[in-house]
């Protein structure tokens, strides 16, 4: 039993070490969210509530942007939740590994199921599929320990700095730049490029639609364009 315990423990720290490079992404984004949130008029409690309760940067930024446009609450929620829908795929992909755990463990795993913890875990479980379940859990939470505390604390630092940064720094532009940084590396396949182009053109053409609904309509069509293009490409490659 001691051996298993040691292995789980060392797996935890291996997860931690392998999660450390993400500091380079997590800290700047967390700080930026704190800064931008404060600039948008949120107080520290509200900014921290976003980062602690939601713990999903892209959707937090999109909620801020839409609230600043005075979009209705329901539209803010629908759009920002759409940004997080990819996590349903993460949840499904982890069922073979974590599906049979106690509910309490699954609740914690779900709360910490972010891009980085998912990507690293799925890679690890693919490379070492037969390791004990305790090791898999340890690895996951090792990654989480490397990134989550830094996400919270960098948000706090950003929120404290926020109000003191002069307008000349054009921090309003941090949100578009962050989203470009997240999306651009995905624009490597034709379906993704077509989706992004449809989204941009649709959102601009439909900017007149009230309640920021134009974006949701544009996103809906863009999603279908991407899926259709992927299907066509697959059929073409198969034939």
């Amino acid at each position, binding site marked *: 039993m001691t051996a298993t315990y040691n292995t789980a423990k060392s797996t935890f720290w291996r997860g931690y070490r392998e999660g450390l490079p993400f500091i380079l992404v997590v800290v700047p984004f967390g700080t930026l969210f704190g800064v931008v949130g404060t600039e948008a008029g949120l107080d520290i409690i509200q900014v921290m509530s976003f980062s602690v309760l939601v713990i999903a940067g892209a959707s937090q930024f999109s909620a801020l942007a839409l609230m600043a446009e005075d979009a209705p609450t329901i539209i803010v929620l629908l759009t920002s939740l759409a940004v997080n829908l990819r996590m349903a*795929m993460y949840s499904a992909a982890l069922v073979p590994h974590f599906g049979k755990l106690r509910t309490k463990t699954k609740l914690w795993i779900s709360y910490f199921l972010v891009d980085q913890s998912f990507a690293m875990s799925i890679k690890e479980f693919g490379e070492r599929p037969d390791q004990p379940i305790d090791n898999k859990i340890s690895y996951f939470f090792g990654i989480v320990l490397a990134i989550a505390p830094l996400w919270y604390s960098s948000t706090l630092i950003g929120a404290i700095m926020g109000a003191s940064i002069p307008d000349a720094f054009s921090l309003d*532009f941090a949100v*578009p730049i962050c989203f470009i940084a997240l999306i651009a590396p995905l624009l490597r396949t034709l379906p993704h490029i077509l989706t992004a182009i449809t989204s941009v053109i649709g959102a*601009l053409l439909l900017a007149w639609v009230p309640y920021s609904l134009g974006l949701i309509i544009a996103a809906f069509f863009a999603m279908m364009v991407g899926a259709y293009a992927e299907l066509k490409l697959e059929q073409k490659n198969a034939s």
Partner: protein
Amino acid sequence: MPLDPTKIWYVITGLAIGTFLIRYSFLGLLGNRELPTWFLRHLNYVGVAVLPGLIAPLILWPAATGGSPDLARILAALSAIAIGIWKNSVIGAVLLGFSTLYIVQFLTA
């Protein structure tokens, strides 16, 4: 314009609960259910379908300039897109985007 605190809290609460339910969906609620292929195929593109449309107006009609197009912001966005695609680098896109923004703002000031 100051944001309404009640609205902020509705958004925080709704987004927190909704996001958690998305994450817990299959692990806790739906179990090992197979999803139809067409559904997964669409899900794959949701992020790329929403975010570009969200930021396009922020880049072309920024509130900071009263909604008129601003050369510095457009060039900054293009350079961030270019470096993001070319170098596959999140941090690189942020750094180059802001560098371009500041340099062009300085040169045109």
